[in-house]
């Protein structure tokens, strides 16, 4: 618990950032597919972050934008702007544990990870690729989560996650997420350039690459509402 809090504390105060994300999906057959999007995140005091994601690729969904308000307790709010329909639709689903854009990431894997979303247990100290780590186990609070538990390797020095093992509802190993190539921004905030998620049951994988990080770029609350959704292209 202290470790989880420390992670959050160390990652607080960045105010906002912008970045581009690209996802490379691969199936067991070796077929690949690319998803490109832009991400803007705004820190909210005492609650989850506000995030706006604009899709660039595939071409058919270009300009589609997803706005989410993450909450420490209760369901996140989500709206989607569909340019072809020129309408904003609220996603009124309690259950968002499905795959994000057909990838191996679930929405709950990449939304902001507030401390309150899990219960924690310290397991052991260990190492991941030679980096001394704490090994934690965390249990999702949301009953609709797709997981029973997650095992997280946290860098002892930098307090950042290095690897997460996901266990499905019958407690079998489901996926593994590995964080690669951490960079430090503003001398404080660590962000991984690559997040590689592998599904052990289906043999599918997704490589999520982050680029062009820009912190404190002057985003405000006004950039994160239904109207801004339509403008965000």
């Amino acid at each position, binding site marked *: 618990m202290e470790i989880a809090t420390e992670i959050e504390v160390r990652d607080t105060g960045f105010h906002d950032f912008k970045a581009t994300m690209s996802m490379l999906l691969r199936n067991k057959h070796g077929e690949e597919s690319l998803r490109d999007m832009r991400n803007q995140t705004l820190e909210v005091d005492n609650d989850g972050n506000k995030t706006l994601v604009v899709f660039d690729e595939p071409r058919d969904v270009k300009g589609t934008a997803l706005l989410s308000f993450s909450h420490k307790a209760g369901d996140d709010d989500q709206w989607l702007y569909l340019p072809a329909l020129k309408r904003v639709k609220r996603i009124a689903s309690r259950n968002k544990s*499905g*795959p994000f854009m057909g990838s191996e990431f679930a929405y709950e894997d990449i939304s902001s990870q507030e401390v309150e979303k899990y219960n924690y247990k310290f397991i052991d100290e260990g190492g991941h690729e030679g980096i001394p780590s704490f090994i934690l186990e965390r249990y999702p609070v949301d009953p609709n989560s797709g997981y029973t538990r997650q095992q997280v390797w946290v860098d002892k020095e930098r307090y950042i996650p290095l690897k997460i093992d996901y266990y499905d509802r019958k407690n079998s190993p489901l996926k593994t997420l590995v964080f690669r190539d951490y960079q430090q921004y503003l001398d404080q905030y660590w962000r991984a350039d690559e997040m590689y998620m592998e599904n052990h049951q289906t043999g599918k994988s997704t490589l999520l690459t982050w680029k062009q990080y820009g912190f404190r770029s002057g985003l405000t609350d006004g950039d994160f509402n239904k109207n801004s959704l339509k403008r965000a292209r």
Partner: protein
Amino acid sequence: MSEAFFQFVLKHRLLVIFLAVTLSLLMGSGVKQLQFSNDYRMFFSEENPQLKAFEQLQNTYTKNDNVLFVIKPRNDKVFTRETLTAVAALTKEAWQIPYSLRVDSITNFQHTYAEGDDLVVEDLVLDPQSLTDEQLAEKQQIATSDPLLVNRLISPTAHTTGVNVTVQLPGKKLTEVPEVASMAREMVRNLEADYPHIKVHLTGMVMMNNAFPSASLDDMKSLYPIMFGAVILVLVVMLRSIPGTLSTLIIIILMIIATLGLTGWLGIKMSPPTTTVPIVIMTLAIADCVHILVNFLHNMRDGENKYQAMMESLRINLQPIFLTTLTTAIGFLSLNFSEAPPFRDLGNMSAMGVVLAFLLSITFLPAMMMLLPVKALSGDTLGSVAMIRFSEFVVRNKKGLLWGMGIVILFLVSQIPNNRLDDQFVKYFDETITFRQATDFTTENLTGIYLVEYSLESGETGGISEPKFLQKVEGFAQWYRQQPYVLHVNSITDIMKRLNRNMHEDDNDWYRLPDQRDLSAQYLLLYEFSLPFGLDLNNQINVKKSAIRFTVTMESISTQQLLKIEESAQAWLTEHAPGMRIDGASPTIMFAHIGSRNIIAMLKGTTLALVMISIILIFALKSLRIGGLSLIPNLVPMGMAFGLWGMFVGEVGLALSVVTGMTLGIVVDDTVHFLSKYLRARREKNMDREDAVRYAFSTVGTALWVTSLVLMVGFGILAFSHFQLNAGMGLLTAVTLGFALIADFLFLPPLLIYFGGKNHEANPYSHCIAICARYGTGSYRRRTRFGDRHGDRSTGYRLP
């Protein structure tokens, strides 16, 4: 050389017995490593194109090994609070099934509707207990009118429902399938205990896979004892010798243990077809032992001592037994051409068994007989008199038989085209097997188990949203829905139409495909954001969004009907959507093709075996003409058997297509015995063709019909197998062997008399020799009587 060997065997009998038993048990120690295969894919080789196509489809989307719980409430109403509570409980519980990837039911069905500007996506049934009667009726209306559900997870009258669990077996351990199956069974038990008003059946591919080893074990438990009983009975009646029966039984047991042991060492997995091996080789081993023992006992009766009697028996039997072992083994080995690996295993295991039987019967058997006290038999060997009468009948009616048999053969062969290929894999199991009962129930009450799947390609990334593509898919779905026997068509277009309606305030006028590509894509994106874990669309859309999986569920129909519909589907695609044309893939399609693929493969194998066997026969018999003539009795029985099958059964499949190779080697045995005796009479005793035929009958006639009877009983017992593949194979083989006997007794002799080579200068005593040869110094009276009847034809009448 062989004589020295046999002398050694008879002298050092204890050593021989010790070595035979030790070596057999040593080989047999591999039994511990025997494993039962529990995957229907065992019937397909890795190169099988239909299997490859299906694997590719599964790799592109997700695997669809499944467990289907079929739930029927006693009041025939699924939409009651109690039943829905049970379904919801099972839906939740089913996630605990090992290797489960997704669980689909009517309660967690992702129902979508519009609420103002919101798209609501939620479980169709969230809290069953809180539902009012009106709400229940409304839910039933939604479920029974949704094309994704009706005839798949809910029957149109809502009297039966299903919970489908998709599992992805890693395929690393043989325990995976039983693990899933036993967990599913436990859930059924618990559910039925908690909700006594419902009955739950279990089907699906995993349950079928699980039924393979249990069907094999059932067969072992029920068939093996029958077999042993029959063997003991036949041996006692025929040999009338306790030591002989005992030795043969020990040989059979040693041989089975050694064969199964070798199978274990070689890592061959047991499957329902290979569980028949012990019965097959047991039957063949008896034939070897009987030949040696009958002559041995006969010689003893004629006053020879044990040692002489055995040496003599081994001397005259070694060559024919070796020859028949060789041809039988070649026949079995021809099964290696089979498309279905279990039948290759069957062939290889049987070939091993036959060779072991041969080795044991020339070592262990004589040694045992030397060791045990043996009483000389009194009286005549079974049925010799009848044989001689019979040979006279054949010789007298040679012309009638030649023509009569010729016509019968031609008639039966002309019936072969009545056979239709059919491989409905559910029917591989007979009605006593739980899986079959559950599946039949499912087919009658809920949905089919026979699927045809297509991966429809749009040809470009994201192309599945293209209106033209979607319209073609929709057209294909509509075409399929109009076909007979089609229960359900799963197509992404139904989701698209529903979403389009939801986006337009649930206005039914908008229940149609979106007409803009980006709109469809954005609908899908929105929908996918709303789906919970395990209910995503990855099982029907590929990662590039360039292709969709299209699934058709059929009633239980014959392979022929299925392939015909699939063929028309191909024609439809070629005409309306040439770029999308692709062969259907699924286990059903795989089984639909395996029969014909196997027949073509087995034709090659059987032809090769036939050529090899004929060459062996030509050399062994030292006659091109007789060797060539042997082709007729070797081939005719199969033709007759398949013709008879065509008249009375008319369905052939995977198992029956291997019968040709298997019986060839056995059928040849009879011909070999008959022809070698015929030639011996012609060459050594200078008889004319008719007398040579009489001689052949009198020397091997009895042995032939008795061994044929044993073989027919052995294979006939397989007809009681709960595994229809084995039952059909056993029955057709028994019929073939019966026809082989008929052909050898009624058709081969006239053929030999008319075409069996130039007559040498007739030996005036040949007729007498023909008859006397069998009798030796035996009954004089009978001989006289026989001579009286045919005195006009015999020139002289005295012992040579």
